């Protein structure tokens, strides 16, 4: 409960926007307000949600991870190729997630031990992963592994996985020293160091966690589309950042909450659903709506910060 006692105004604002969006949509379209639509919302956006959870951790620590979109493309192609070569589905998943975590660990080590800027390290990671995916296969690969088929057709697996990882993330962030160290490092790295916190280890782990989350997102995307496409997840890293920011995470680190990120993802999904319900609107209106929302939330954060102006 401690998690909610902290004055997390932006998260409440995000919740309000989400409720408002759903209410407006429900009044306009009669079938909108239903459990199925909500479940689909979670299912359609599970891969984004998973990636966004990892990205939120990285942003909370004061860093940034641009590699998560490319990770999703890479993992899809990687899994598809393995399974076409006869590797069983479960092994492909395990290998993909292990590799993804390892790549994150590598990027985190570069950031933490060589003091390289996270923006550039993960940009390099993004090019590397996207390039590797395209080297493996330029074309989309079909996946007909029975496990993937089963996972892909279930309406519960993707939402369930998303919520499970979210709860795990909340536990890590709010009830484990690791999570508190993430907030401290992002809030004031110098202080964290002087307080004797393991700053480097925390940074490495944060990127590894992000690699884990995004590769899991890649697996979900693979069974959701039942294909591996090197170009999937293009610019998804920016959606993930947008979701975190809309959810109240401060891009400079130290402030934010994972529930907010989930709400951010759901808002993005709702906008998309509404526009597809509308039917006549081009789907690119989603982008415009997200852009405006992002601006509104940055403004809100500025106000929130001004309210804390006594903070040195």
């Amino acid at each position: 409960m401690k998690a909610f006692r902290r004055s997390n105004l932006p998260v409440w604002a995000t919740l309000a926007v989400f409720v408002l969006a759903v209410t407006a949509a429900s009044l306009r379209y009669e079938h909108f307000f239903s459990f199925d639509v909500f479940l689909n919302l979670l299912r359609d956006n599970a891969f984004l949600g998973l990636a966004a959870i990892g990205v939120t951790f990285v942003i909370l620590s004061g860093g940034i991870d641009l590699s998560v979109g490319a990770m999703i493309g890479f993992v899809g192609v990687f899994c598809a190729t393995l399974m076409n070569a006869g590797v069983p589905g479960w092994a492909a998943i395990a290998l993909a997630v292990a590799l993804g975590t390892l790549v994150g660990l590598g990027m985190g080590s570069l950031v933490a031990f060589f003091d390289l800027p996270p923006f550039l390290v993960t940009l390099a990671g993004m090019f590397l992963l996207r390039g590797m995916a395209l080297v493996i296969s330029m074309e989309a690969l079909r996946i007909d592994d029975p496990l993937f088929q089963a996972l892909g057709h279930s309406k519960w697996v993707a939402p369930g996985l998303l919520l499970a990882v979210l709860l795990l993330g909340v536990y890590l962030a709010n009830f484990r020293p690791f999570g508190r160290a993430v907030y401290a490092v992002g809030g004031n790295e110098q202080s964290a160091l002087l307080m004797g916190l393991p700053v480097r280890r925390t940074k490495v782990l944060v990127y590894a966690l992000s690699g884990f989350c995004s590769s899991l997102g890649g697996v979900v995307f693979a069974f959701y589309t039942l294909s591996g496409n090197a170009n999937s997840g293009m610019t998804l890293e920016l959606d993930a950042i947008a979701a975190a920011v809309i959810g109240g995470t401060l891009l400079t680190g130290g402030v934010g909450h994972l529930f907010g990120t989930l709400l951010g993802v759901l808002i993005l999904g709702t906008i998309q659903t509404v526009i597809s319900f509308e039917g006549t609107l081009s789907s690119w209106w989603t982008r415009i709506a997200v852009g405006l929302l992002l601006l509104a939330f940055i403004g809100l954060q500025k106000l929130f910060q001004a309210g804390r102006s006594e903070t040195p």
Partner: protein
Amino acid sequence: MAEDALNRDRPADSGPELLRMRGIRKEFPGVLALDGVDFTLRAGEIHALMGENGAGKSTLIKVLTGVHAPDSGTIELDGRPIRPRSAHDAVALGISTVYQEVNLVPYLSVAENFVLGREPRRLGRIDWREANRRAAEALARLEVRVDPASSLGSHSLAVQQMVAIARALDQNARILVLDEPTSSLDAREVERLFEVMRRLRAEGLGILFVSHFLDQVFAVSDRFTVLRNGRLVGELPARGTTRLQLVSLMLGREVDEETLAKRPEPAAPAPPMVEARALGRRGSVEGLGFSVAPGETVGLAGLLGSGRTESARLLFGADRADRGELRLDGRRVRVRSPRHALRLRFGFCPEDRKSSGIVPNLSVRENIVLALQARRGWLRRLSLRRQREIADRFIRALGIATPDAEKPVGTLSGGNQQKVILARWLASEPRFLILDEPTRGIDVGSKAEIERLMADLRKEGLAILFVSSELEEVVRNCHRVCVLRDRRQVGLLEGDRVDAGAILRTIAGGGEDA
């Protein structure tokens, strides 16, 4: 020898030696920050570390707290040698530091800041109830009552500092280092902090206290250690020491008669160029009054934090004066901004050349022409050839040691960087030059050159305002000296009355008030 002095001076209420630092030496590129410094802290004493800017106080603290490794020297805690390699190490050894800028995380709650890194756990998760309870309890012992679940940033700096102290004590600190803890507190908060310090002293803690407020230092300390230019100049008990003695040690007075006698050559009589009359600004500095004619130098003397830099900023328009008046050639002017000051042909070498002077990645040439170009306006660009001529002329004239004018300034030594800044302002052809600590942190040879240069500039008819913490320098170079204390001018010494003793007495408060 130092040992004997220690035992003799030992106050009755202090305990055994807790910390003993011997022969600490630390060199940074171009600067010898600590030159064989000794420091001893006893259990149950408040020991003030005194010294002006660049004396080596913060370096000594950083060596003690594991931030810097000393080049040589030993540190003993309870007679056992220690070598803290990180802040974490130091804390584990029982040496905790509370910095001026409170080093906590303002976004997190009071309790979190208190337990961060050693959170109480129950059933595999952080036990927040226990954390809150512990924080509240520890803070209550310091008589601070705040909601431990509230965010730290929502409290005053004084409370944040108490949280930092509580955190330090909870980690079994035996030595508490308080680095300028009072600089952002009001009088009542300072008194409360002192009460806490006295209580901790009674509990047997050794407290190392740094402050540049003399009153406070005398109010709370048992003993002083004074550093100057990286060297130990003395350790003395607070009881029986006068303010004058302390200030003399800090500013350096073992100046021989010969140097003291040296005074700037008198300037040819001329009407004053710049005149300040009771110039001031709310919250900055007050009562600034002096006049300076072409060929003259006026000095600003005072301790750290007395308002020297604020005065310089006021004159240059970096802050706008809101009281008193400034006259230039007898006409009243209001300096609105540094740009305006430049058009009036003022020049300003700021104190902190790293953060407000040089642009380290630009070349020597680019740094030199910066102010001249700004004065001309960016539309009338100086040709590259002209820039080179100017740069080469000043490199030669000031003896800037650089292979060529295209080297990035950041690669030069401190003294040469200072000369580049000086060259920048000289290139803009000022009539009134403000030099804020131009000799700080540079070697003796460069200091002498800067002084020679000032003399040459005076001969060319410039008026100079010279700020320095080194008294001898002020006496050697200034025709007139404004003495500042607690952000107001408390004296103006002229002609024969300019001598180190008179300046010291005025600073210490025993001298004549203007």
